[in-house]
């Protein structure tokens, strides 16, 4: 199908979809071209199963049958004197060795209860507590980004049929998901945009954004068969999502920021250490790292990938060979713009008296300090904006310095 600039395009432009706030005090990031991918692992990743504290004297006693071993068929891959990596993450290991990946242990949002949905709301809204879900922190950050010239497009991309909370809000964002259906005619689209323009501006804005992504995707050579290869909890599904995001981000007018959701991390039952549910999921995540690195190509060097989850899992194994919801969690950073090859942690230890409420890894690092560190260095965002607009009431969680490669 040949695409020519049509009325569709003109309408998108005139709807002034991208209104940058252009807040004062923002060092121009225009000379650099920073890219950010945020991956949310829904269901609470078992951080102690992925980046394993094999050097903690209490670990094997506490974890029992769920503890990953350092010897045997599929041993954990050594990271530093305290931690080793799950063997289903070889790409992450390569990046770590190349100083392009790091991990943050014992990290948590301000949320201290154990509901997935409230936990995800806090993670995505960037608010100090649950219940404030009007918009997401990544959308507020995009709203605050200085405009890049006369771009009529949004800077944010959500992979999936619906936008995750983290991307919802005033700034327009694009959505993309693998699908296999013939596009409607441009004439129908422009008539519908007209009608929405008169009756329902919100629908007009949404449809115009959707159409724009279609154009981008076609430009990126993605107009072939995009049949979904699997759900967001499957290895092919995670790979495909990452591949699509990478190709769109590399397109000439592509988004700079993308959010992906991978699901199914709620490993209450038969988690593994290896050969169980967690191994499968981590393989999918590792595949996503690989697809991003390959797909982003020359912009991988200016990319940061942040992997987060709503909370962690209990230190001890539960009654069904899994782990229940716990507070302290894990975050991962990867990308050519990351100063990697290290772990960031203030390790609380796993002795009984060190556990949070006698069951969970105690959180010692505020996740917002990590995220603010990424935004502050990578995008040169002023701390004041981060502590008010993006993560309200988070002044106490100072951005962690030195996350970005020089």
């Amino acid at each position, binding site marked *: 199908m040949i695409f020519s600039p049509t009325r569709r395009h003109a309408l998108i432009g005139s709807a002034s979809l991208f209104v940058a706030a252009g807040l004062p005090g923002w060092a121009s990031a225009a000379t650099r071209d920073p890219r950010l991918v945020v991956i949310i692992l*829904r*269901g609470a990743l078992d951080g102690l199963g992925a980046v394993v504290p094999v050097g903690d004297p209490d670990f094997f006693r506490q974890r029992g049958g769920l503890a990953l071993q350092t010897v045997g068929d599929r041993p954990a891959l050594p990271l530093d004197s305290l931690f080793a990596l799950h063997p289903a993450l070889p790409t992450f290991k390569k990046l770590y060795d190349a100083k392009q990946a790091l991990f943050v242990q014992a990290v948590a949002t301000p949320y201290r209860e*154990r*509901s*997935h*949905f409230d936990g995800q709301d806090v993670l995505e809204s960037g608010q100090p507590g*649950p*219940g404030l879900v009007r918009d997401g922190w990544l959308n507020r950050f995009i709203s605050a980004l200085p405009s890049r010239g006369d771009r009529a497009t949004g800077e944010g991309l*959500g992979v*999936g*049929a*619906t*936008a995750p909370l983290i991307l*919802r809000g005033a700034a*327009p*964002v*694009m*959505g*993309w*998901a693998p*699908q296999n*259906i*013939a*596009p*409607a005619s441009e*004439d*129908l*689209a422009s*008539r*519908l945009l*007209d*009608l*929405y323009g*008169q*009756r*329902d501006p*919100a*629908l007009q804005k*949404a*449809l*115009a*954004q*959707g*159409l*724009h*992504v279609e154009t981008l995707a076609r430009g990126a050579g993605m107009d072939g068969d995009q049949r*979904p290869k699997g*759900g*967001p*909890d499957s290895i092919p599904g995670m790979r495909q999502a990452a591949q699509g995001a990478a190709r769109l981000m590399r397109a000439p007018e592509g988004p700079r920021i993308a959010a992906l959701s991978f*699901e199914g991390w*709620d490993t*209450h*039952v038969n988690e593994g250490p290896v050969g169980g549910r967690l191994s499968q999921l981590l393989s999918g995540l590792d595949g996503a790292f690989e697809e991003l690195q390959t797909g982003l190509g020359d912009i991988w060097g200016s990319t940061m990938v942040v992997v987060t989850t709503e909370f962690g899992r209990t230190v001890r194994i*539960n*009654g*069904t060979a899994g782990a*229940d*919801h716990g507070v302290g969690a894990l975050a991962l950073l990867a990308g050519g713009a990351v100063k990697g090859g290290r772990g960031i942690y203030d390790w609380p230890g796993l002795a009984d008296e060190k556990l949070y*409420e006698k069951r969970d890894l105690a959180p010692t690092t505020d996740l917002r300090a990590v995220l603010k560190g990424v935004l502050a260095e990578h995008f040169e965002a002023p701390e004041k904006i981060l502590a008010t607009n993006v993560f309200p009431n988070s002044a106490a969680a100072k951005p962690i310095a030195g996350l970005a490669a020089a």
Partner: protein
Amino acid sequence: MSISDEKQGFAALARFGFGARGDGDLASARLDPRGFLRAELDQPGAALLAGPGLPSGDASLQTLFTEEDARKAERDRLAQDIATQSKTAQQTTQPAMQAQSIMESAMQASAQPAKPPPRPPSPDQLFFRADAHARFTHAYMARAGMVERLVAFWSNHFAISVAKGGPTRAAAGPFEREAIRPYVLGKFGDMLLAVESHPAMLFYLDNQQSFGPDSPAGQKQKRGRNENLGREILELHTLGVNGGYSQSDVIALSNMLTGWRFAGREGKFGTPGSFIFQANVHEPGAQNLLGADFTGGGEDQARAALLSLAARPETARHVALKLAKHFIDDTPPQALVDRLAHTFFKTGGDLHAVSLALIDSPEAFTAPPTKMRNPWEFCVASTRLLDRAPDDVGPVLSSLSMLGQPLWQPPGPNGFSDDSATWASPEGMKIRMDLASQWTNRLKDPPDPRELLEMAFGAGASEETRKAVARAETKAQGLALLLMAPEAQRR
């Protein structure tokens, strides 16, 4: 009849049902919008769904077990074949070549005898499609569709996901028919009991694998409690996340629920696939839930706890807010929520009374239509408008997946989002348009879009929509605009 009466008829069908069918029902609805809806609610057994090809939950699980056994036997046979060949190979092949050649010969052995026909769909897939087809047809045929909207609402409130595995796929349809439909106009407490004891829910939220840590089986097998079901009952099904419970309440309820299971394939404790109480995994002793002691152990302990949760004011408020959000607005008027909660509480969770209170509320017809139709509603409403029900439910199921609401497969136990913003996403709107275009272009004998607009929207149509539809280049394009018009997207 005034214009505003006509508009009320349109609003009633849109807000509480699936919109007009285009066969003159709008004319009936506008005479007495509330009466039109009430008649559907009062129709005996309106929510029930039965028919050939729709087995009970235990029957569908039994078929699944039988099929799984057959597959396992087949695998075992294949493994034995390989073992036999391996013995032969040991005598003839060099040891270093052994492993590879065994695999190769096993693969050749299975590939050579004239390629086997593709495996027929498994029983769980067949059951799922039969139930999906029945559900869609029921919604398509419904007069107003309010009862089917309530079914979808409650099914999403007590969400399970077929993605969890075979048992939930096979039992998802039965779950809705057996645990939701009989109670959507009955008592909330009865629905709660039916839901939490249904095999689909017991499997989905892991209660099948929960052991009382001090129960005989828990002690012997060193297995323990799984909190998943107990937590979600408190957080999602009854009190709501701000309902004032703590971790100790989660543990207490989870303990009381130990032993609530369904019988396995061997049928040791009852008919395979049916609910059982397995006493030897039940946590012994009294439990304290929200300050109240539940003493007598056994199956009735959790039953009493669930009924006490159903009767809490927090549950009334939680349900009232969700209903008002679903039917009226993302941020519904507090007065409406209070009224619904009051009715719920006062009537002991009588959902017929609560549904009546909803349509009798003044906001029901005065609040502007801000809510987006979710993908299920969009697909049903579009089919009703075009009056062409598909013979095969497959295209409906793939449309729902593309739009982000695969049937009975929400991302988590909190169900699909009920926010308008979720469904008015860029990707979602574009796919809606592509689907509307595809559907209307495939019509063999398309109706006149202007006439259909009169029949289905009447005075509810805006001038702009009328003009856009009238000026369309083809009938198909006019119909696509009708399906995509704000009047058909919002309710």
